[in-house]
């Protein structure tokens, strides 16, 4: 990752965490004194490097893993605010990234019963659940929205 792309990455995540939404290309360009075209290219390179995911056909950030820019079935409460994870891995990853204490609420896709994962000071409280990965690791990025 070159210096510009890393600066864009750091800015994007900082703003996402601070504001609860990812910055657009124009905002990032202004903040980092880049041309909009340069910032847009950086967004696209970060997507190609599987760091972020853009909404199809746009430069709007859809996922800056572990965070989702759109509501999901994985709301997360952390010491630094409320977010949505892309999946249970990312939801717990959001807790890990933002202080290692927090709570993820989801529902069993089979029976719709609520499942709550609570982490306190880096320790997961016991929870009667199992996590299922539908797709083998080598194929996760073929369709990152379905795993």
């Amino acid at each position, binding site marked *: 990752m070159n210096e510009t792309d890393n600066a864009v990455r750091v800015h994007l995540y900082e703003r996402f965490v601070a504001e609860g939404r990812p910055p657009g290309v124009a905002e990032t360009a202004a903040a980092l004194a880049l041309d909009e075209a340069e910032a847009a290219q950086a967004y696209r390179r970060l997507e190609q490097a599987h760091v972020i995911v853009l909404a199809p056909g746009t430069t709007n950030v859809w996922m800056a893993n572990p965070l989702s820019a759109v509501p999901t079935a994985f709301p997360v409460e952390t010491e630094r605010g409320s977010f949505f994870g892309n999946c*249970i891995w990312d939801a717990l*990853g959001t807790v*890990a*990234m933002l202080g290692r204490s927090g709570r993820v609420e989801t529902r069993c896709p089979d029976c719709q019963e609520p499942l709550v994962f609570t982490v306190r000071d880096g320790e*997961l409280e016991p929870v009667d659940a199992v996590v299922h990965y*539908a797709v083998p690791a080598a194929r996760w990025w073929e369709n990152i929205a379905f795993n």
Partner: protein
Amino acid sequence: MLAFRSEEHVERWCRNMGLERGGLLRPEQQWRLADAWYANRLAADWQRRTPAEAEALFAELGLEGDFWRLAP
């Protein structure tokens, strides 16, 4: 990556969805993976793991076999 009440619920959901059962993790394994994977994501010196590094982490957490293979 979805959380279910139990393995029985995974089996039934997969049948209803016409999917083969994939990989299963205990909640503690999933938390440890999430923690190792994302704890330093905001750091300026963060770097994406190589496939070999990711596989080594999976193995450390007991996630081994073809399902968890990334490196060619």
